[in-house]
């Protein structure tokens, strides 16, 4: 068996296993740690897909920034008694959601297998980082600048929303 086949199955197993751990662990801190493992697994999947720049972005933004943000959020929001057990339990739609999701997964996989994909024949890009930079600053320069504005607006908005209220009521 070739190396990239083994790599795919190994990474897929780790990613799906830790994603299941995110949903089924009942301590939210453990869920957040499993989430970091999922993000790293997805970065590994990007590497198997020849997307080295995106793998680096995934590690920086998701495994770095987003997970730190989530852990800080968990730290700021404690229950009255301060215990972390059973902080991530299921609500009253546990079984309804399971039925809906199983049906949805069935429909999705049916159409994924049935669709006749038109495989591309061009050569894969060797220098993804340079090509992405060229695309971002030529064809996609306006979405790129809009993304920058969106990030600024979202960060300022997050600070305004989360800031301590001076005179409540």
């Amino acid at each position, binding site marked *: 068996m070739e190396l990239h086949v083994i790599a795919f199955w190994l990474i897929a197993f780790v990613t799906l296993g830790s994603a299941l751990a*995110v*949903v089924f662990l009942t301590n939210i801190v453990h869920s957040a740690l499993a989430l970091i493992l999922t993000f790293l697994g997805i970065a590994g999947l990007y590497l198997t897909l020849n997307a080295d720049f995106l793998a680096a972005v995934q590690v920086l933004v998701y495994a770095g920034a987003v997970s730190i943000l989530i852990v800080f*959020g968990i730290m700021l929001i404690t229950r009255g008694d301060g215990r972390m057990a059973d902080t991530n339990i299921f*609500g009253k739609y546990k079984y309804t959601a399971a039925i809906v999701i199983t049906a949805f*997964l069935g429909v999705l996989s049916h159409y994924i297998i049935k669709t006749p994909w038109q495989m591309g024949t061009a050569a894969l890009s060797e220098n993804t980082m340079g090509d992405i930079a060229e695309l971002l600053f030529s064809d996609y320069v306006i979405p790129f600048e809009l993304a920058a504005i969106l990030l600024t607006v979202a960060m300022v908005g997050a600070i305004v*929303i989360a800031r301590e209220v001076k005179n409540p009521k």
Partner: protein
Amino acid sequence: MITLNHYLLLSAILFCIGLYGALSKKNAIAILICIELMLNAVNINLVAFTKFLTPGDLTGQIFAIFVIVVAACEIAVGLAIIIAIYRDRSSVDVENLDWLKW
């Protein structure tokens, strides 16, 4: 041989795990975490399409970058809203958030 279908099925399963958590969890932060899982599953789709359907054209990866940007905004604003709710209610249990009931 790993084909496009492997990646699409993997991301479909990952999306469904995230959707299940988003629909069934009580804790608002857990719901945000599960939404991040769903967005990541979509990104796997986009990158897999780039490799198998349009190699040589990196539009799919550009879109994945924009999805990552929007996801980062979403998690920041979402956590800020949850913290504001917690300050008001001392709880982030979504089944208790019933301001719209009368």
